[in-house]
């Protein structure tokens, strides 16, 4: 059954046919010395357009953090099924980055030694360079071969001359000319010898065709062969440096370090000075990151982790903060609790949110002893805090999933005011998960795809080609930070680990990667499409070993942190972009020369400014 939009576009562009497309192709957008030099991830497609074949590259809607807001489709990287509209008609800034190459205009194609890069040299000698993240350059190349005739250079086994179908026909007609004994062609060869670069390559390629396709006895004289050989050696394609270190990252071995022990009462007591300030918060966070917190200490520690109390506050200051926050809470609580039914009747937004809170409170963790049973007073607390949060953050109000985020906090703290402010702290981290346009979730799903590509490129490729590149099957994991995937005690540990903000930004995405990678073989088993992937992922709920996952995620982080060949986008997601500067400074290699064009690594630093992470 066709998607309506899709069928519509087919009607609009009946002559256009996408032959094949390839995900994870990075295009170097290089304009010498300009600030917008960048490496963009995207999809390379072969398109049959009437009689012509076009190579089209489109950036992923998702890989560019600053621009992903532009798209209105949720399909994200899932471009396999994307509607094809007229070239370059996509809205917004992304469309400017599109690359369209008429195959007719291509002079040569060079494949890198590592088979991960294609360099197209056009007839005007401009170059377009594409890196294949997933090493599927061969597949693309084979597809290309079915469309055009590619002739390998005698002098460079990685260099191919392009002949479109028309050119072949033309070359055979030339052959007839020669057979008739006409001199035209051989005069042209003479011209080529005298003015090798000026003479058009299309003419040249016809002759190469003639030279190579003919039976040996029918070939022109040896002198002509020599002339042609000498010409093909100066093919006008500059040598291209293959050492693209940021593509196809190869990670070092993974070390799995055992988890640590939870922060103990004794340790915590010695962590404070005489005034009650925490002497070394970073050390405490390290312990929590490695082993979590002893359950009895949670009510106290969570108030620091969730920013109710600053780590350097004294006991007295904390008392003052609590008093102040209690008053503030009471004030906001009164704002909704004093609203009359009459008032509510003219307040649709409030009424809708209140109704949602009621519905969700009644179905949040009702199997937990803390919320079990009819008329459980804790349900009222849960409801009151969520209602007060509507007043605290009226623009956001209440969105499904928020009750899941509050429930463990209230159960651990047991105190309405403290639970409210800790929930506020948590929501400050999670706010973007509940964006009206879901842009925060979309961004994270795309970042997850970026990380998965770095860690398990085969799995990322597999998902892309099986209708699952949008990663939407991880939506639940991300929205409520695995609340639905682990039993409550595990959720407590996982959240306090994540609240430390260690060891990098977006560590929760590495947890996703760790799970997906662990399940890789099952996910990639024959014929799995989105429904099978979704089913498998959903069925993992309550069937995972948190400690194992945390060890793996930490191991993956260390691999990525120590890798010197990460893509810039991977570094940005993890907040490792600063490493680029230090690597560059220590190696004193500011630039890499790529053909005629230059990529300045330092340009990547500009991204740092635009990174917005919601961690504290």
């Amino acid at each position, binding site marked *: *059954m*066709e*998607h*309506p939009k899709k069928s519509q576009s087919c009607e609009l562009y009946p002559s256009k046919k996408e032959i094949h497309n390839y995900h994870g192709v990075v295009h170097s957008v290089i304009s010498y010395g300009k600030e917008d030099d960048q490496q963009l991830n995207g999809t390379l497609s072969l398109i049959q357009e009437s009689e012509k074949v076009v190579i089209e590259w489109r950036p992923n809607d998702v890989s560019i953090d600053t621009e992903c807001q532009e798209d209105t*489709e*949720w*399909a994200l990287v*899932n471009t396999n*099924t994307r509607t094809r509209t007229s070239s370059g008609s996509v809205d917004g800034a992304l469309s400017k980055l599109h690359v369209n190459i008429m195959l007719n205009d291509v002079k040569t194609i060079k494949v890198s030694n590592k088979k991960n890069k294609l360099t197209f040299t056009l007839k005007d000698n401009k170059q377009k360079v594409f890196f294949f993240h997933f090493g599927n350059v061969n597949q693309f190349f084979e597809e290309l071969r079915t469309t055009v005739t590619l002739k390998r250079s005698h002098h460079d086994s990685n260099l191919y001359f392009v002949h479109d179908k028309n050119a072949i026909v033309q070359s055979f007609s030339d052959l007839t000319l020669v057979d008739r004994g006409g001199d035209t062609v051989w005069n042209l060869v003479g011209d080529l010898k005298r003015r090798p670069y000026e003479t058009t390559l299309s003419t040249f390629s016809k002759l190469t065709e003639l030279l190579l396709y003919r039976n040996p006895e029918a070939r022109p004289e040896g002198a002509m062969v020599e002339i042609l050989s000498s010409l093909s050696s100066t093919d006008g394609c500059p040598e291209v440096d293959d050492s693209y270190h940021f593509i196809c990252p190869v990670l070092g071995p993974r070390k799995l370090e055992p988890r640590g022990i939870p922060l103990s009462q004794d340790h915590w007591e010695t962590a404070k000075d005489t005034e009650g300030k925490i002497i070394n918060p970073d050390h405490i966070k390290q312990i929590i990151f490695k082993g979590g917190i002893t359950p009895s200490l949670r009510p106290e520690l969570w108030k620091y982790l969730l920013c109710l109390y600053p780590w350097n506050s004294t006991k007295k200051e904390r008392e003052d903060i609590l008093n102040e926050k209690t008053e503030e809470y009471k004030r906001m609580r009164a704002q909704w609790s004093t609203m009359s039914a009459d008032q509510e009747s003219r307040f649709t937004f409030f009424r809708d949110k209140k*109704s*949602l809170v009621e*519905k*969700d409170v*009644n*179905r*949040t*963790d*009702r199997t937990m002893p803390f919320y079990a049973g009819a008329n459980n007073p804790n349900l009222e607390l849960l409801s009151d805090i969520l209602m007060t949060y509507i007043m605290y953050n009226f623009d956001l109000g209440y*969105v*499904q*999933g928020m*009750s*899941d985020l509050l429930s463990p906090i209230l159960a651990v703290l047991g105190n309405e005011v403290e639970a409210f402010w800790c929930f506020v702290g948590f929501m400050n981290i999670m706010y973007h998960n*509940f964006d*009206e*346009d*879901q842009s925060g*979730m*979309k961004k994270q799903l795309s970042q997850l795809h970026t990380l998965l590509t770095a860690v398990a490129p085969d799995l990322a490729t597999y998902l892309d080609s099986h*209708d699952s590149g*949008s990663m*939407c*099957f991880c*939506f*639940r994991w991300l*929205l*409520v930070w695995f609340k*639905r995937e682990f039993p409550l005690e595990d959720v407590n540990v996982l959240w306090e680990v994540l609240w430390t903000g260690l060891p990098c930004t977006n560590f929760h995405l590495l947890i996703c990667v760790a799970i997906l990678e662990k399940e890789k073989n099952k996910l990639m088993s024959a014929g799995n499409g*989105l*429904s099978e992937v*979704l*089913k498998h992922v*959903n069925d993992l709920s309550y069937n995972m070993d948190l400690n194992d996952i945390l060890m793996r995620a930490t191991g993956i982080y260390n691999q990525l942190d120590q890798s010197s060949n990460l893509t810039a986008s991977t570094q940005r997601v993890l907040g490792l972009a600063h490493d680029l500067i230090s690597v560059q400074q220590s190696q004193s290699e500011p630039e890499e020369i790529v053909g005629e064009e230059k990529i300045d690594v330092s340009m990547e630093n500009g991204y740092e400014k635009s990174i917005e992470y919601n961690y504290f």
Partner: protein
Amino acid sequence: MAPAECEATYKVLVLGDSNVGKTCIVHRYCDQTYYDTYISTIGIDFKQKIISLDGTPIKMQIWDTAGQERFRTLTTAYYRGAMGILLMYDVTNQESFNNLTYWLKNIEENASPDVIKVLAGNKCDAVSQRMVEQDMGQKLAENYDIPFYEVSCKQNINIDKIFLTLARHIREQRSYQQLTEREHYDSGQNGNITLDLKSRILEHTSLKEPWKCTC
């Protein structure tokens, strides 16, 4: 029954406001279970059930998602390939009924134009809390020309029936499509065949007054 033995998989979506009983009807239909309390659905999920549709094994794949409007952005993945939609409201909640027009519009915008729809008014067992009368649902269904049933997950009323109606209509739609495709290949040598096709299929599948509610 192994999937390979099934003749076809019918993808069906359950849509409707939050808390109308979407997850509940999926559990009731696929697992024959009912719980008094459910957790709200986050993201997307589905369950499958193999049914015998007049002797033919068919895999019913029932997709379930969150009801809140904000999460409609997931729809591209959700709607893709959907053949049937079970649109649901809660007879004890007027708002969920009022929002049906929103849902129908959403379906029109996202689903295939020939997707099969049925309307379900859930919780028809809750007599004392009823806010939406049966004829309201009936009238709306007639306006949109879609089959309608009042159902109860709790008391297992009309659950199998409504899904079977969906499955029959999907089969009808598919065979109609296949036949018209064949007609297309035959390059219209006899125009009467195409015209006559739909009535023949309707006759064959014995879909007589499927919208009549027996609740």
